[in-house]
């Protein structure tokens, strides 16, 4: 049995419980992060789905932005889903308060319009073999531009980029944590297992 790495889930707002449950099933121990001290011993960090404006304000109010950015720069594997992807992006023109801003991508918030346009679609994700993943896109962002060091892992049938990787960073527009398919969490747990602070 491989060792279970300790993965933090930012628990200010959003679907952090769902990420915790998926991580457990994918072979990780989980801790909820609400204070900078909780970042100390983790081998991976997930920034969940939620409202990016709400999470951004809480990150600022409780001085979490700089510590998180610091750990990421040291190599902490970090994965943002939906709102999380927006917070990781260096360029998110529709977000009024940039926070973590470490990943060389441009993210367009709420790219498909109101909730009635939210949808699910099967996508193949680079690095995940077998059947396609069910991508759940809820008032979702798309990654409209990615820098030269960013690899594109998944696109929708219309060509929109919805999953990317840049060194220790992973960003997805969709929510594997809302499904029973834990392969993407498995991929992230593997990254976390290899990382020692």
């Amino acid at each position, binding site marked *: 049995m491989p060792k279970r790495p300790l993965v933090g889930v930012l628990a200010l707002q959003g679907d952090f419980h*769902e990420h915790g449950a998926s991580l457990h099933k994918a072979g990780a121990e989980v801790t909820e992060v609400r204070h900078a001290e909780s970042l100390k011993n983790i081998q991976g960090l997930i920034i969940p789905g939620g409202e990016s404006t709400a999470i951004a304000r809480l990150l600022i109010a409780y001085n979490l932005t700089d510590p998180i950015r610091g750990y990421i720069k040291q190599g902490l594997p970090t994965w943002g889903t939906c709102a999380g992807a927006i917070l990781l992006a260096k360029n998110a023109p529709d977000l009024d308060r940039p926070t973590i801003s470490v990943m060389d991508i441009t993210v367009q918030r709420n790219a498909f319009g109101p909730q009635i346009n939210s949808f699910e679609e099967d996508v193949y994700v680079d690095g995940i073999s077998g059947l396609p993943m069910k991508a759940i896109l809820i008032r979702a962002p798309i990654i409209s531009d990615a820098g030269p060091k960013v690899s594109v892992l998944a696109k929708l049938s219309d060509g929109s980029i919805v999953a990317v990787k840049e060194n220790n960073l992973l960003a997805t527009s969709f929510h594997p944590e809302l499904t029973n398919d834990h392969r993407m969490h498995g991929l992230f747990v593997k990254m976390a297992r290899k990382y020692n602070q």
Partner: protein
Amino acid sequence: MSANSSTENNSSTGTWTVKSGLAQMLKGGVIMDVVTAQQAEVAQESGAVAVMALERVPSDIRKDGGVARMSHVKLIKEIQASVSIPVMAKARIGHFVEAQILESLGVDYIDESEVLTVADEDNHIYKSDFSVPFVCGARNLGEALRRISEGAAMIRTKGEAGTGDIVEAVRHLRTINGEIRKLSSMLKDELFTAAKNLQVPIELLSAVAETGKLPVVNFSAGGVASPADAALMMQLGAEGVFVGSGIFKSAADITNETDRLNQQKAMATAIVKAVTYFEDPKILAEVSEAIPDNAMRGLSVAQLPTDELMAGRGN
């Protein structure tokens, strides 16, 4: 308007996962009642996860009387244009045409709400027909599961809207969670009797008995008027809170509009922080110090005549 529309790309809108999923994204957050675009901006600035676009907050509906209907379309559009967070709006219980109008406006969630005047005393809206998700109020497990059978993708306990008195919100959340705990200890044959008594489908009831929770997100509503109230509901098991009159009816005695909005913003921000750090009394004390010293005055539910109570509408 039909749900589950599919395209050749294997992509489908209006699915159950997509409808209940938005509620999952709102978890740990505060949904605020607003009556103007300016209030909506203050709500977003304070960290609200969504706003409920209304013509009158419940405490004014209570005061003014008359028939309370869906908000004016112009107002909803103004509020939609002013914020980037999801915008919800209320339809009357059973008024499926108000719901059709709200759906066509691109409202992100519809609240089929007892706060408005009831349009159909026998039937709720058949919510599964819509692509837009619905949230409905409930006082007990039977109401919650009946609404979910009709297609509600999110539940909120009703409380007693517009009072600023938390007593009913507490009662309703404790009732639902207590009923779920009882179900979890029942034998298989007893579940059929429970389904009969609660007037709900056995499949849905059995699923709740097995998982020990509702199949959709459950927020608390109706009476939250302080950060402590919000944290109380979170500790009792709510997954987030709706705040109606508690924010934009606080600081009501301040006549200067800018000053008043600033005080209300302080209240809104404090409630947002209290919902995130609901288990941390030190932070709760800090945020409680920052709120205006004139919270909404409120009405004690125990002193209200029964015909003025809203929670009993639509069971």
